[in-house]
């Protein structure tokens, strides 16, 4: 591996990400899978870094999952997203950051389509006006939330309480970075570092002191693949993709997987349980799985947030082995404590995959 070669490619795909004043669009699936991730990101940028991030309760799903599953046509997705642009316009913002990689890909696809086919944009403008009497400007800058984490990686690392170092060995934490397909594979120039060797998560992990693991199936799909999973008969195909990735990364003994996509995060996490039940194999050390975190969750851990406050108990694979390696202090008794102090029921343990 020639690291200088990667740096040359990364230098070709750098984005000028604005520093402040963002309209924030949440992810519909992420709020259900890992609801703490978005709140944590907003807390970091607003309260730790003092940035202006605005959100509105009137924001809805972008329709991306329905669009990529062929349930709704493109014009419907365009009109939904045009409404989001209208909400941004009404709020007086010009920079938009979306929390979901599929949203980011779809927003990018729509903006590029409108550049090529302005008559289609005019039709959507009319659709939106007919539907809800709203008008919109397109964003001057569109970013994904992982771009924001990348942008602020050094200010965040200055506040690091637990850098990515294995406190037992003194060596860097070994990080597998997994980039959602819709981040840069459609438009390489819109991703930090491009599509083949993305830097957006590598740069973040490096800034925190971690070591990136490059393995043969790094580029491979996480296994979600929309219709691979959403069509029930295809789920074996979904699982086999995930299996391929874990078999490929296993020899490198990663300590953690970080992703920038809600779907990837979910499937790389949950399918470890299914693989353990179906194949009788666990890919992490000592019978545990490999923890899977979003970029925001990783940043929060590094900055000293309590793992249960940021919702890491919502992950299938136990995060405690990673917390122990990083030397993070946590109270095991609080893992399943509800917001009002009420003890929540403890999930049933899998057959093979060890949990705390």
């Amino acid at each position, binding site marked *: *591996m020639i690291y200088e*070669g990667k740096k*040359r490619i990364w230098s070709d795909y750098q984005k000028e990400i604005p520093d402040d004043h963002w309209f924030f669009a949440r992810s519909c699936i992420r709020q259900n899978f890992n609801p703490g991730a978005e709140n944590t990101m907003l807390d970091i940028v607003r309260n730790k870094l003092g940035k202006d991030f605005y959100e509105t309760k009137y924001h809805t799903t972008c329709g991306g999952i329905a669009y990529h599953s062929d349930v709704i046509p493109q014009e419907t997705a365009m009109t939904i997203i045009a409404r989001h642009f209208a909400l941004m316009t009404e709020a007086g913002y010009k920079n938009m950051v979306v929390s979901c990689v599929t949203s980011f890909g779809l927003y990018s696809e729509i903006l590029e389509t409108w550049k090529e086919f302005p008559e289609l944009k005019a039709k959507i403008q009319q659709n939106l006006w007919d539907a809800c009497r709203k008008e919109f400007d397109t964003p001057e800058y569109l970013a994904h939330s992982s771009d924001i984490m990348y942008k602020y990686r050094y200010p965040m690392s200055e506040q690091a309480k637990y850098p990515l170092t294995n406190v037992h060995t003194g060596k860097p934490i070994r990080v597998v970075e997994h980039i959602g397909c819709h981040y840069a594979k459609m438009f390489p120039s819109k991703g930090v570092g491009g599509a083949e*060797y993305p830097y957006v998560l590598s740069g973040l992990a490096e800034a925190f002191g971690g070591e990136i693991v490059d393995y043969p*199936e790094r580029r491979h799909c996480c296994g979600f693949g929309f219709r691979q999973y959403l069509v029930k008969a295809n789920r074996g195909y979904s699982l086999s993709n995930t299996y391929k990735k874990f078999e490929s990364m296993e*020899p490198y003994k990663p300590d953690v997987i970080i992703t920038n996509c809600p779907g990837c995060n979910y499937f790389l996490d949950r399918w470890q349980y299914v693989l353990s039940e179906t194949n009788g194999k666990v890919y992490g050390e000592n019978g545990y799985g490999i923890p899977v975190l979003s970029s925001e969750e990783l940043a929060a851990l590094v900055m000293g947030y309590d793992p249960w406050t940021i919702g890491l108990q919502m992950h299938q694979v136990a995060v405690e082995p990673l917390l122990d390696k990083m030397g993070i202090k946590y109270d095991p008794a609080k893992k399943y404590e509800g917001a009002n102090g009420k003890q929540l029921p403890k999930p049933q343990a899998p057959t093979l995959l060890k949990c705390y």
Partner: protein
Amino acid sequence: MNNRNVVIIGGGPCGIEAAKTLAKLGHTAFLIEKEPHLGGHLAKWDRLFPYGQKADEVLNKITSGLENVKWFVDTQVTSINRIDKSYNVILGNGMSILADAVLLTTGFSLFPAEKKEEYGYGIYDRVITNADLEHYFAEGNDHRIQYPKKIGFVHCVGSRDEKAGNRQCSKVCCATAVKQACEIKEKFPNSTVYCFYMDLRMFGRNYEDMYLEAQKKYGIIFVRGRVSEVSEKQDGTLLIKAEDTLSGKPLRVSLDLLVLMAGMVQNSDTAKFAQMLSLNIPEDGFFQSKNYFTAPGVSSKKGVFYAGACTGPKTLPEAIAEGKSVALTIDEYLL
């Protein structure tokens, strides 16, 4: 005899041949080469298809008889200005030539293989190009080539590739890949050699024979399908993903060495000379002849001529023949 000054820009085989012919016709030929030596890409090649002739033998033959040519290496053209019917060509060495005709034989550049990021050139140690392999054959050393047991060739790297911005076929890569596959098999007889191709364009005399010999004598495995991506494994070997379009199946193979057949693209100086001479260049970046059939060496500007691969991918014999041919065209123009 009407002795005139002709400046030939580009000292590859085509430019050399044109300069020698113009000198024989009684003109003063100024041959300008930016590199430290004449010969262009030929000077960097080891053997030539289809007969395996040594490149330096061919180059020596071409460069003999340059006594009557005023040639300059390591010399850039800094400007060209029209003065009446002539062109004032100013060189980087401070020299100024009032030329009655200017011939562009600027040739081609090899497609920068690192642009096909998915193949990992410049990222993975064991990914090399056709030019690197020729250098290895000529010099005998390359730290990336250590007794490889499984070797792959990827055809059409940066050719016939809309995404790379090059729709044209580079014409010589198929034959070069087959030649190099046989050569490396000779070098490492116990190796397994794969060629991943879209089409095999073995159009010239004896090219097809070379291809058949590659299969029968050398046992080269030809796979019709493009490589989709290359990754590096923990032991430094390469994992190749490709599609075998004949069997309709995806293919994964581990290799010790991957050779990318970088195609021909317009010379990196084409735009510079187009600007100096106010020449229009089409979308593909190559110079455009006035008429493909009847005036292949004539540009849209009076007194400016083209020959060789600056008007599109050419084989070496074609480039040499065009050099000779355009000399006659220029001679007729100068009468």
